[in-house]
C-alpha cells in the first residue's frame, strides 16, 4: 500500500496548472483533496508519473449565486457546502448542503473537493448526481482557454468525463433552482458510497408538480436521469399516489446491464423504488433544511 514512484509539483494559478500538465504529459494528474486519488495510488490502481497539486491555487474556493445560477469553485470542500447557511444556497438549491452530509466521513468531507468529485465522476457521487439534477454546466480551463460543458455531455462512462487531457475543472454551475428537492441514499454503513441514491427536485404551483428532475445513482455507469418519471410527474398532483407511480417508473429504469453489478440489479431496483418514493414525499414536505442523517429509513 505504498504508491509507485511519482514526481510532485505545486501550482499557484490555474494557468500554471494547465502549463504544467502540458509539460508533464498525459500520465500527470491533478491532486485536489486526494480523497479518491491517493487511495487509488496506494493500491497502485493509479500510477501517475507526476502530481500537480492545485491546493495552493487561490480563487477556486467559493459558492456564489448569480441570478438563477449557483457557481461552486472547484476547490470548495464538501464540508463548506455542508455548513453553508447562505440564503443564496438554501433558496432553490437546498439539496446541496443536505446532500453533502452523505459524503463519506468528516475527514473526507473536510479535504475532498466539489471539483475533484465532478472530475472523478463516480456514478454514486452526490455532486455528480446533483450536477445532473440541476442541469449544471462544468467550466474547464485547457491549453486554449476555458470552455463550458453541459452535464449531460460531461459524464461519459464509469469514472470518465468529457474533459480533455490537461484540462482543469474551474467551476460547476448549478442551474434551474427549485423550491422542493432532496437526495436520499442507502448504504449498509453510514458514510459508505451509496448502493443506490435518488435525487429529486421540483416546484409545486396550484397543487401541481412542475419542472421535475429525477436522477438515480449507483444503477448505471453515470448518474441516470429518469425522463419517464419526470414526464409523468409534470402537472401531476403531489401525493402518495403520484409518488408511488413515479417510484415504479424509477425502478423500471433500473434494467439488467445498466448497473455496475448486474448480479443484484433486482435488489437495486427494489431499493430505487423505495428511495424514490421516500425522496418525493420528503421533498414535498418542504425544503430540506439541515436534516438528521438516517439511511433509507
Amino acid at each position, binding site marked *: 500500500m505504498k504508491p509507485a*514512484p511519482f514526481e510532485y509539483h505545486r501550482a499557484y494559478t490555474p494557468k500554471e496548472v494547465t502549463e504544467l500538465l502540458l509539460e508533464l504529459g498525459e500520465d500527470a494528474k491533478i491532486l485536489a483533496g486526494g480523497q479518491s486519488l491517493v487511495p487509488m495510488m496506494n493500491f497502485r490502481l493509479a500510477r501517475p508519473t507526476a502530481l500537480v497539486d492545485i491546493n495552493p491555487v487561490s480563487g477556486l474556493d467559493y459558492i456564489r449565486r448569480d441570478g438563477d445560477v449557483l457557481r461552486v469553485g472547484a476547490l470548495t470542500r464538501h464540508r463548506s457546502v455542508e455548513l453553508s447557511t447562505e440564503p443564496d444556497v438554501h433558496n432553490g438549491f437546498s439539496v446541496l448542503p443536505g446532500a453533502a452530509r452523505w459524503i463519506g466521513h468528516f475527514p473526507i468531507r473536510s479535504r475532498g473537493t466539489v471539483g475533484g468529485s465532478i472530475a472523478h465522476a463516480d456514478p454514486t457521487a452526490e455532486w455528480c448526481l446533483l450536477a445532473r439534477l440541476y442541469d449544471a454546466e462544468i467550466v474547464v480551463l485547457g491549453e486554449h482557454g476555458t470552455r463550458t460543458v453541459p452535464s449531460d455531455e460531461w459524464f461519459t462512462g464509469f469514472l470518465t468525463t468529457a474533459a480533455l487531457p490537461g484540462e482543469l475543472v474551474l467551476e460547476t454551475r448549478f442551474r434551474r433552482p427549485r423550491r422542493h428537492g432532496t437526495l436520499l441514499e442507502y448504504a449498509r454503513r453510514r458514510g459508505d458510497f451509496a448502493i443506490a441514491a435518488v435525487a429529486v427536485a421540483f416546484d409545486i404551483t396550484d397543487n401541481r408538480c412542475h419542472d421535475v428532475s429525477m436522477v438515480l445513482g449507483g444503477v448505471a455507469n453515470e448518474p441516470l436521469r429518469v425522463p419517464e418519471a419526470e414526464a409523468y410527474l409534470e402537472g401531476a398532483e403531489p401525493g402518495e399516489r403520484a409518488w408511488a407511480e413515479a417510484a415504479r417508473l424509477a*425502478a423500471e429504469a433500473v434494467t439488467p446491464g445498466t448497473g455496475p453489478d448486474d448480479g443484484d*440489479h433486482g435488489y437495486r431496483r427494489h431499493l430505487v423504488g423505495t428511495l424514490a418514493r421516500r425522496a418525493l414525499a420528503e421533498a414535498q414536505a418542504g425544503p430540506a433544511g439541515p436534516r438528521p442523517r438516517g439511511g433509507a429509513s
Partner: protein
Amino acid sequence: MTEQIGRRVPRKEDRRLLAGHARFGADVQFPRMAHVRVVRSPVAHGTVSRIATEAARAQPGVIDVVTAEDLPADLRIPVRLHVEGTDPGERLQPVLASHTVRYVGEPLAVVAAEDAYLAEDAAELVELEIDELPARLDAGSGDDEVVADFGLGYGDVESAFAGAAHVARLEFSVQRHSGVPLEPRALTVDYVPATGGVEIFGATKVPGFNRRVLAQLLDVDESVIHLHAVDAGGGFGVRGEFYPEDFLVPWLARRLRRPVSWVEDRAEHLVAVNHSRQQRHRLEVAAAGDGTILGLRDDVWHDNGAYVRTHGVIVPELTLSMLPGPYRVPAYSGRVRVALTNKTPCGTYRAPGRFEGTAAREQLLDLVAAELGMDRVELRRRNLLTPGELPHTRAMHTLGTELVLDSGDYPRLLDRALDTVDELGWRELVARGRAQGRLLGLGLSLFLEKSGLGPHDTADVEITSTGRVRVHSGGTSLGQGIETVLAQIVADEFGVSVDRVDVVNGDTTLQPFGTGSWASRSTVVAGSAVRGAGRAVALRVRELGAEVLEAAPEDVELADGVVRVRGAATARALDLAEVWLAAQPGSPWLRDGEPAGLSARHRFAVDRMTYPYGAHVCVVEVDPGSGGVTVLRYLVAYEVGRAVNPALVEGQLRGGVAQGVGGALLEEFRYDESGQPQCTTFMDYLMPTASEVPAVEIVLCEDAPATTNPLGARGAGEGGLTGAGAAVASAVSDAIGRPAMTGLPLDPGSVLAALGTVTGPAAASADGIP
C-alpha cells in the same frame, strides 16, 4: 489499602497508550534496517513453473530476494492445538510455496530492500509463471478434500429421535469472516552476531510457543531467541499465531546479518491472517410434545481454506463440543467434515466455533418453539440445566480436557436478563413500533462459554529497590487490560495500590514458561499463577521482616505495603524497600546459603476449564424498503464468577458485541468464481463503525464463583461475541415474522429474500413497495 480485586481500577496501560508512549512492533527501529515485502500468489490454485527474481534483484536499493529454493527443504508450520485422532499430514502450510499455490495471498517470495517503498516496487518485478488449476471454493460441494472427519457425542440418539413427538430440522450457514485488529501485524527483528540469535519485537498471544517453533525451524537453541513484550492494537485470536512471516523475518535477519522490519498492510492482512467462521450446519432436534429436548444432531461442513494452520482442527471441534450449550440434552451426536478450499486458511477468531454453533442451535430452538406453538423463552427455560444438576459431565473431550460444566445457575441468569429487559421497557418499545407499522423484533440467545484453559501458566513476582512489586507473567497484552488485572490480583497480596505494581507480559527471557493470552484464559490461569507467586513473596517479606523486627513471623502482619508487629501501632514498621534492602547480598539478615532478593516463581496448573454462561437480548428494526437491519437495543447478561475489574469485564463484553454485530450483519470475505478475494479493503470488508453498534446494557453476574481456580473467576474475553449472531438472527426473524433465519450475515438481500420481497436477481418488481 482497600482490596484491589473487584474495583473499577482505571487501566494502567492507558497512560502510555493515550500519551503516545506505547511501543508497537513497528515502533522499534534499528540503524541499517532492511524492509521486507512478501510476494504473494495472485491466483487461487496453480502450479508454479518459474519465479524469476533477476529484475527485482537488479533494482537499486534491493538487498535480497528469496524464494522457497533458498530455504531449507519443505519447511512447514506445525500445529499448536492438536485434536486427538486427526492428522493434517501434507496439509500444513509451507513457509514459502514452491510447486503449488493454493490461495490468493500465499507467500511465494520475499524482497528485502533499503526502504519499504523500494521493497514494494521491487516485489512487483518478481515474475511469476503459474499454470492455473481449477479452484475449489465450496466445502461440501461433492468434490471435497476432507482433511478431518470426526464426531463427538453421547447417549442413544437413534432412540431419542425414534420416539420423539416432534423433530425440527434447520440448515444454517455462517459466512467466512474474522478478527480484524486495527493494527496489522508487524515484526522487527534484530540480529545478534555474538550468538547468532535474534531479538524479536512484535510477537503477541503465544510467544513461548512461537519461540519453540522458531528454534526448531531455525535449528538453534531456544535461549538465543528473545521475544520482547510490545503493545498490540488488538489480537482477537488471529494475531500472534505462527505465520510464514514469523519464520521469514527472523530467518532473513540471520541471513543478512542485519535488522529486518516487516509491516503488514491492510490489503495483505485481509488475505494473510487466519480467516474463520465459515460453516454449514444441518441440525435436527428431537423434542417431546411439551418442548423437552430428547436428542440433538448436527452435521457440519467446515471450510478451512487452503491449509491446516496452527489451530489444527480445533475450531470445528469446539463447535461440536459446545453445541449442546447450557441445556439438558440427553443424547447428542455431532459430526464435522473439515474441507480444504482454495481460500485463505482458517484459525480461531474470538469465540471460535461457538459463535457459529450458538447461532445455529439457538435458531433451531426458535424454530422448534414456533413449530410447537410455544413461547421461545418457555422452551428454553424448560430445557436449561438447573443448579442441582451441576456439575454436569458430558462424555466428551474438548481442547484435550474433560467436559465438566462446573457450578452455575442458568435459569437465574435468564431471569435476571429478562427482568432487566422488562425494566428497560423493550417489549413495549417493540409493541409501540409495531403498532406504527414498523418491523421491530426482539431477539434472545442463551449460550455456554468455556474459559480458563490450562494446563498451566507461570508467573514471577519480585520486590524492587524502591519497594515496587514487579510481575513477569506468561500472559500477553493485546489491549485487553491484562496488565491492570494482574496488578490488582498481586496488589492485594501486599496491600498496595496498583500504582505500586509493574507488570511485564510476554517477554520470553523474563518469563520463559508463559503460555500466552487466548481462549479467555489469562485472568483465570495467569492470574492464579501471579497470585501464587505474590503470596510466596509476601510470605518471604513477612519472614524476613520479622527477622529484622526481632519478632516471631506469626506476630507480624503485612498490610498497606508495610510489615509491622501485629497490634503494636507505635512499633517500628518496615516498608517494602526496607525489606528489599534486608534481602540484598551482604545483608546481616540473610542466613548462610539463603538466596538474596525477594522473588518467587509460581506455576499454576489446572486440568479442567471453567464454563461461563450468558444471554444476549436485542431489539432490531428491519426496513422492508432497503432490507437494512438496525440494532436498536442490546443487552448482555454474563456470569463471570468473580469480576477482578468490572469495568474491564464490561469493556470486553461491549467490544465483543461490536464484533458480533459485525459478524451478524456486515462482515464477510467474499470470493469470485475464480477464487479472487473480493474484500481486500475496508470499502469491501465492512467493519461495523460507531454508527452501527448500539449502546450495550450489561448485567454482570457474580452469582456462581468458579470452583477451578482460587480467584473464583471465569474468563470474559469472548462472551460478548458468542451469542451475538444468534440474538440478532432471532430478533430479525421475530421482526419479519419468520420462525428462523437460515444463515448469516443478515444482509439486505437475504433479509428481503426472507421477507419474500425480492426473490432473485431478475424476479423483483417495484410493485408492492411498502
